């Protein structure tokens, strides 16, 4: 007689965890397909439409790349913070504020493009870092959960962008209702409409990956995240690391905002971040906070987001993608826990 029972292990084997991640994505898409089917759509036809209009033409691929790039910035932003155990739920706000600061530079500073563009990038990064500064200091010095404070700042940033774009910075030509005038400089494109924001994002991901894997800094951050007490005991500057990492996290999202406003959209307007910050959380979690993994998961989420945009004519909204994202997250969280278990076969003694 053999009987089976479950045993929970303190650490999940990486291979099992990875397999369950993939499974959770498949299950979420199946669930979504089932719901679509139940509401009178043909999920196979919709899926085929998404695939063909995304990968079937260079236009589709260009659109996809324009979604891919901001998701890398936001995903990296959330991922670096996660490495030290901090939840940056405010990438959305830092993205918005970074875009706002970069726009300010573009509109009010004149000079040659090769000066203005880097200046805008710096302004975006500083803006993003500024936007996470208060939550960072509150977490570092008063232990206030950064989870909610970073999130609340999102709404403030959104309102600020909306106010500037409809008020003081409104396009003076009178042609637009809710945007600034077209920025005088833009990030140059290298392929169709795809601008240099994408390759720069990929380079940053690779650089970050090397830093977190091979430097003392990356090691200390990982230890400070896994066990702050032990890290402090070992003499690591945990608080300084935390502040540095969180500001870096904000700066990455802010740079993403700068690239979006100066490369993709060309002007500052309300809703410039298409939930990128929130989907970035998903990108980072699915990638288990590994910068290189972010590239893969950001690509996947870009396909999903693009699918939502393609299907808008079918009565779906981009919010439908958010719901599917949530499903993946839910299944992934369950899968993470399930990965801790192994099945034990024990021979029951006769007697």
């Amino acid at each position, binding site marked *: 007689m053999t009987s089976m029972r479950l045993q929970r292990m303190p650490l999940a084997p990486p291979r099992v965890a990875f397999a369950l991640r993939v499974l959770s994505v498949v299950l979420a898409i199946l669930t979504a397909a089932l719901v679509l089917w139940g509401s009178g759509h043909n999920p196979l036809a919709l899926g085929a439409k998404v695939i063909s209009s995304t990968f079937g033409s260079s236009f589709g691929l260009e659109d996809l790349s324009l979604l891919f790039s901001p998701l890398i910035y936001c995903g990296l932003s959330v991922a670096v913070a996660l490495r030290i155990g901090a939840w940056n739920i405010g990438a959305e706000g830092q993205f918005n504020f970074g875009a706002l600061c970069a726009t300010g530079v573009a509109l009010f500073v004149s000079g040659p493009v090769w000066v203005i563009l880097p200046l805008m990038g710096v302004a975006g990064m500083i803006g993003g870092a500024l936007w996470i500064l208060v939550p960072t200091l509150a977490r570092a010095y008063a232990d206030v959960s950064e989870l909610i404070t970073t999130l609340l700042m999102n709404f403030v940033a959104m309102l600020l962008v909306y106010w500037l774009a409809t008020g003081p910075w409104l396009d003076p030509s009178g042609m637009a209702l809710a945007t600034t005038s077209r920025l005088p400089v833009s990030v140059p494109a290298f392929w169709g409409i795809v601008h240099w924001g994408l390759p720069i994002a990929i380079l940053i991901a690779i650089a970050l990956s090397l830093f977190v894997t091979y430097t003392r800094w990356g090691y200390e951050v990982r230890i400070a995240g896994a066990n702050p007490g032990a890290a402090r005991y070992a003499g690591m500057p945990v608080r300084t690391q935390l502040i540095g990492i969180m500001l870096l996290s904000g700066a990455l999202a802010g740079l993403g905002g700068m690239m979006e406003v100066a490369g993709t959209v060309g002007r500052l307007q309300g809703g410039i971040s298409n939930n990128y910050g929130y989907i970035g959380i998903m990108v980072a979690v699915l990638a288990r906070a590994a910068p290189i993994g972010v590239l893969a998961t950001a690509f996947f989420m870009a396909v999903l987001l693009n699918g939502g945009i393609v299907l808008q004519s079918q009565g779906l909204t981009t919010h439908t993608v958010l719901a599917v994202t949530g499903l993946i997250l*839910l299944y992934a969280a369950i899968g993470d826990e399930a990965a801790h278990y192994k099945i034990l076969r024990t021979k029951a003694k006769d007697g």
Partner: protein
Amino acid sequence: MDILAGLIQTAFLAGGVLALAALGEVLAERVGVVNLGVEGLIALGAMSAVVTVVSTGSPWLGLGVALLVGLLSGMVFATATVVVRANQILCGLALTYIGTGMAATIGKPFSGTPVPETFSPLHIPVLSDLPFFGRALFSHNILIYVIFLILPLALHYMMFYTRHGLNMRAVGENPAAADAAGIPVMKMRFWYTSLGAALASGAGGYLTLTFVPSWSEGVVAGRGWIAVALVIFAGFRPINAVLAGLLFGFVTGLGFVGQARNWPVAASILSMLPYLGTMALMILPVVTWQRMRRLMAAPDGITAPYFRDQR
């Protein structure tokens, strides 16, 4: 005086959403489960209430459906976090995404449709006709009295003056000890988390059936997150939670007054007040009020899943 009475009236009306959602979150967090899905639950409740009332015309039915939708979503969330013991933060974010996304998708055809029948203010003889207090305190719909009077007092009594409430708090503080004392930890966590979710979703129903009587994608506008923050500020106590909700209703009302009276501040700047106020409330007390910290501390076992065999 008239402005102040109107302001207090609006404070109750606007604060009701936050107060009810915060009450629900107090229940969940007291048994040791952080539910970050409040934002999504409010969206689901708000949308389902509108859809129900548009097709049946009964606000009571609308509220009932909102509560039921919340209870069912809460049971899914509790299955993931309490039974399977998956990460509460991830599951909460997931619930926010799913709720917000589903509400926007299903509610799209109803976007902008005014709710035909809402909860209208009750006229209480004598009291409603009082000069100042009549308008400020006694011209509300029935839900206001439930949210600000009946529920918090009942929950306070239950949590701090009954054996069951002691058990409930024990589950949140130290599940292992509670388990050893024979308290059904899992059952408590499961049902109070689900019930809390029902209240959050009910808050959404309240929102679209009284305060903003129509559905639109942005109608929730971060209220769920503010509610989660208020619970921390309120020290996980029901009466404090509704008072904090009222305070934020007041801040929201201030924004309305500013708009109506043409203050030289843009409407979107005034709309920032609740978020900035919440930030201030989360940070300032911790910095300035060190002694309160222990008194208002979170339950010890919060966010930690409980494994009986790993005590």
